[in-house]
């Protein structure tokens, strides 16, 4: 990496010191505050920190943190340092902090908030931009997704020389990516269709069949793909078939893994080198880990929006395995709980279902309308005590998830 100008070096140093103080004070992992202070001293800090590095940006509604982790793991095969905002601090300050902390790393894999992607592309001149999926999420504070897709499309069309790795099965992603100069299309699957019934090009109804999707009226259709997720297997760009056999559960993570493999190939890391490294990833910031609590096994799943809940249901142990649902509506969760009505809970019928969180009454009314029996509980321990059987899966949204992690971290 080239030499940073004095002002940027000062900004990273002071930012780093603030991060240390913040960590010692017990406020998060300290990565954001460092970046905030750094950016205040040097607004171009992110651009300056990016100079001379090969950067991968990862964005989408769901799977950002996991895919960032998987790509970072795969690029480890190159034997070089990789900078990454592994804890999901994905706005400008978090990115600056991640790069500032690893000032000698020639590679960086950065998860980016959907709204910030155009600005971050401009600032970092990335080698690869990874687009996973786009669906409704926390709409009281996020931009509308058709608008997000349009901004991405403009930014990617202007970003000449960069590679876009994009999920061809998500029509809105395909529309955003199709203006770019170089696209590597991945058949990563799409199970949530509620935000892509209509053509982003002309507004007509999209037709779907086993071959994919196409517009009924204009020429917009699913691009042909170089990488394919096929059940638990991947077909790579050379047409070779490999078993994924990940440690992370669920089809959403298999999608993330195939995207990670496609990105890795841009850097010369082939499937055979990358796959063992992807299989070594077992947990992402507390998600998917199995913990023991009062003699029972508890597994935590994070789901922040309707598409995320659909994927979380896919990971559940088969019925009648019990499940605890926990929902809050604090600022990071979105203060509007109407999205609960976009989730189809009927798949939970026949299970023992517990409901908790600050907005458990919203969940209660929602489950009642779907004829799903449930019990209200105060917290995770009350559910653990009432579980029939030996294990409990927990699906929670952002702050509810953090509260349960804290509760489980406490001594029994």
């Amino acid at each position, binding site marked *: 990496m080239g030499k940073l100008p004095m002002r940027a070096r000062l900004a990273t140093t002071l930012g780093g010191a603030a991060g240390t103080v913040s960590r010692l004070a017990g406020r998060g992992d300290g990565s954001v505050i460092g970046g905030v202070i750094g950016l205040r001293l040097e607004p171009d800090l992110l651009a300056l920190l990016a100079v001379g590095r090969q950067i991968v940006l990862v964005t989408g509604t769901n799977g950002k943190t996991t895919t960032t982790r998987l790509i970072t793991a795969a690029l480890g095969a190159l034997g070089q340092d990789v900078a990454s905002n592994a804890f999901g601090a994905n706005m400008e300050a978090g990115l600056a902090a991640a790069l500032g902390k690893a000032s000698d790393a020639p590679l960086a894999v950065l998860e980016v908030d959907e709204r910030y992607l155009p600005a971050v592309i401009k600032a970092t001149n990335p080698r690869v931009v990874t687009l996973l999926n786009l669906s409704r999420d926390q709409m009281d504070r996020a931009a509308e997704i058709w608008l997000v897709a349009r901004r991405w499309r403009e930014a990617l069309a202007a970003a000449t020389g960069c590679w876009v790795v994009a999920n061809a099965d998500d029509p809105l992603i395909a529309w955003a990516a199709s203006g770019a100069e170089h696209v590597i299309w991945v058949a990563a699957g799409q199970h949530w269709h509620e935000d892509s019934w209509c053509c982003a090009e002309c507004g007509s109804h999209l037709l779907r069949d086993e071959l994919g999707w196409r517009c009924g009226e204009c020429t917009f259709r699913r691009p042909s793909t170089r990488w394919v997720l096929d059940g638990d297997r991947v077909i790579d760009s050379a047409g070779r078939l490999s078993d994924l056999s990940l440690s992370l559960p669920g089809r959403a993570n298999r999608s993330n893994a195939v995207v990670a493999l496609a990105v890795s190939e841009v850097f010369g890391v082939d499937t055979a080198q990358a796959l063992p490294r992807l299989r070594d990833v077992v947990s992402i910031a507390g998600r998917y880990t199995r913990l023991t609590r009062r003699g029972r096994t508890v597994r935590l799943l994070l789901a922040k929006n309707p598409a995320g809940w659909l994927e979380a249901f896919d990971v559940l142990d088969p019925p009648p395995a019990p499940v605890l649902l926990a929902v809050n509506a604090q600022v990071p969760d979105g203060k509007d709980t*109407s999205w609960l009505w976009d989730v189809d809970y009927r798949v939970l019928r026949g299970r023992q279902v517990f409901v908790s969180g600050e907005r458990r009454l919203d969940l209660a009314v929602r489950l009642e309308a779907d004829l799903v029996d449930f019990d209200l509980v105060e917290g995770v321990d009350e559910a653990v005590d009432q579980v029939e059987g030996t294990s409990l899966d927990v699906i929670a949204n952002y702050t509810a998830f953090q509260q349960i992690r804290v509760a489980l971290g406490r001594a029994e």
Partner: protein
Amino acid sequence: MTAEVPRRRGAHARGASTLRLVWVYPDLLSTYGDRGNLLILQRRARLRGIEVEQVLVNADQAVPRQGDIYLLGGGEDLPQILAARRLRGDGGLRAVADRGAVIFAVCAGYQLLGTEFGGEEGQQVAGLEILDMRSGRGDRRGVGEILAEVNPALGLPRLTGFENHQGVTQRGRGGAPLAGVLTGVGNGDGTEGAWAGRVLGTYLHGPVLVRNPGLADLLLTWVAGRLPPLAGDAEQWTQQLRDQRLDAVAATAP
């Protein structure tokens, strides 16, 4: 204007045993849990022994003329413009409005019932002219919990919901407001929503019929006549949720 129980119309009203709930363009207008309004109407009808048929009409299909209650949900700017264009071309919603069908529309769906609304660049887009009102783009988004006192002629308890829109709506002379705003933004002039005959529009989602069962029952009454109250255990969670939301807004009120 009074809230007399109107004559029954539509499939159910003509003696058919099934109540037809028509959800118009869920592929374009379904953004803030709009399915909830459909599910709650279905639930509350079935608990009264009324059979329900859901009819979901996509934007490439014709709007059926034989429905009892037509629902329109929220949507982003571009889908809203597309929906308005297609509904004008289709003509079905206009026709059922003229014969007195019940129409309940939320947010973007509410706006497109008027004569015009503001597009993504603030341009004016032609609406369906079912309600005498016009909407434009305000200076900033109204986002948050909303509380409103219902037009006394409708005889309903306060409305609680969540709003998220940048619309400003002005009514003409041909309609009344649905409610007066106590907390929140609504139409932007202190009123919220619009009401004319059996057509209701509102900026409230939440979804609004979940948190306001009285409003859901009013729509059902317009089709099915007088309804018996629900048993207490069928209302307990709804009532607790409603109380919690009313308390939450009261706690933050200035």
